[in-house]
């Protein structure tokens, strides 16, 4: 089952590579990526389609939950906003301002269920 992650990340050295690595090497298969500069040229808006990798036998058939990914992504220093869009959810713009806080950024955010 695929999901979509909407991320705004600062345009800094290696920021997109770092973002994709944080997803791809932590048990999620990246299915598609688009990135474009924001109007002020300081950040990228990145849309990532992904699905949790199903471990092959004899490993237990327990893919990583998709809902823990926003917190993993949010802790990257240059990530400014992150939103997980679940399958079938109505498309909408990335949540502004406090969405990163909801994902659990150390030093800047509080956890919400």
């Amino acid at each position, binding site marked *: 089952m695929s999901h979509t992650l909407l991320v705004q990340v600062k345009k800094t*050295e290696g920021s997109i590579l770092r973002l994709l690595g944080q997803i791809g*090497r932590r048990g999620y298969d990246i299915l598609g990526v688009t990135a474009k500069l924001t109007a002020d040229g300081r950040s990228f808006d990145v849309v990532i389609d992904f699905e949790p990798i199903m471990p092959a036998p004899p490993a237990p058939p327990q893919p990583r939950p998709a809902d823990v990914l926003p*917190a993993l992504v949010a802790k990257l*220093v240059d990530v400014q906003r992150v939103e997980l869009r679940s399958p079938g959810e109505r498309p909408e713009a990335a949540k502004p301002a406090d969405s990163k806080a909801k994902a659990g950024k150390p*030093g*800047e*955010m*509080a*956890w*919400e269920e």
Partner: protein
Amino acid sequence: MPEMSGASFVCRSIEAEGIDTIFGYPGGAIMPFYDALVGAKFKHILVRHEQGAALAAVGYARSSGRVGVCVATSGPGTTNLVTGIADAFMDSVPIVAITGQVRSHLIGTDAFQEVDIFGITLPIVKHSFLVRRVQDLPEIMLQAFRIARSGRPGPVLVDIPRDVQEAKADLKLLPRNLEEERPPAPAAAEIDKAIALLKASRKPVLYVGGGVGMANAVEEFRGLVKATQIPVVHTLKGLGTLPYNDPLFLGMLGMHGFKQSNLAVQESDLLICIGARFDDRATGKLAEFAPNAKVIHMDADPSEIGKLRASQAKIAGDIRPALKALTMPLPQIAEWREHCLKNKQAYAWKYNAPGDGVYVPAMLKELADKADDKTIIACDVGQHQMWVAQHYGFRRPEHHLTSGGSGTMGFGLPAAIGAALARPDCRVICVSGDGSIMMNIQEMATLKRYNIPVKILLVDNQALGMVRQWQELFFAKKYSEIDLSDNPDFVRLAEAFGIPAFFVRERKDVPRAIDRLLNERGPLLAHVAIEQAENVWPLVPPAKNNAEMVIGDHNK
């Protein structure tokens, strides 16, 4: 302020952080930094391999709570740092690695000693910078130290091209705002949920990891234990959070945990996980770990919560207020506590192995009994590491330096060097094995050069003991590439480095050896020969749950 070079500014930044010692090795692309280093207010320790610099910085940071700094030149100098950086990442240790890079216009041309260390280290750093302009250094250096130590600490890489180090500009230190670095207060609603879970519990267990010490929350944790009287199990990195001689200390849990610890977790109805992360070495078969327990999970890093085990109360951020909020008497758990303490007594280690040879668990217990409250143990990786965790009683978490997440053989000696320089008020003992010690043996030269009073307790079974144990138990005794019977003569080797050393083979000589380690001045090596067939017990076999541990031959 007159203009200064980028290299000089980096030195001023290190001084401003209050760091008194850094570790490094010079080379072409970092030469401007080494030129600016002359006259700096901090000490530079010239190691003999860059990996030693990174791991010494780890030891410095873990023992002192300050940020460790290591320095290397471009290319192989930087790649030699990688293992130490990965170690810091896995164990959440605040270090800043400063690396020289080829001149800016040569980046991407395969220039001499050019390596994309920024790219190589992306998965193993908390953050990294490639400095493109000298004017960016004030903000980058400020952020590098802030990021390394704030929230969940970790390594930060600052890669500086040689021309940026040489360039001059009007550079000013930016003010630190330590208040900004404090983790956020946890959500009050989650603390309320945790209190309700605690009050409803009849069989709670505290499962404590290294995050408590790193959050400076040891006193709050101990206050919680004292008030609630909940039994405590520790991860490898959590050891010392509750002193080993506290009645409620059950020991380490997990693969080589004690039976009373693993049984307490498996039987519990509430697991209060504090600064730990459900690592596979702690949980065994995750699906069967604490099968009847609800979970309260507290951690500075929100991404750890729910990563491997769902929790019913999620406390992210500053764990100290949460610990205080849960500090309350729990009279309803008296029966459970007595059950756990009876198990602790029933399964207590007997230290009565037959024979005249050195029995490492007993030796380490004797060492702990004789050592004072200011003794730091730096371990390497393997059987001796587990014996230390099981049998050396720790009183503080920062007194136990071990490579937990990464399992870095070669960690012990450089980490001990870093600790000895960070904590001159403490005695530092490196407990190593004959496999591990050879991985950074060159740092004996560093011990000698600076007369660093690290004592080395080298446990030698002439084999890669942990691998041998697994081949014996799980690979039908088909031994493959574990023989180290052609080890060098470690006493003569130490003496060649200029370090006094002595040899111990018999059990009766252990007390004298420990006395020498604890009382002699300067560096010293004790080479202790043990039986190769000795195994680490208990052991939870792979893919088994923690209640299915094998007790072994001495403590049945």
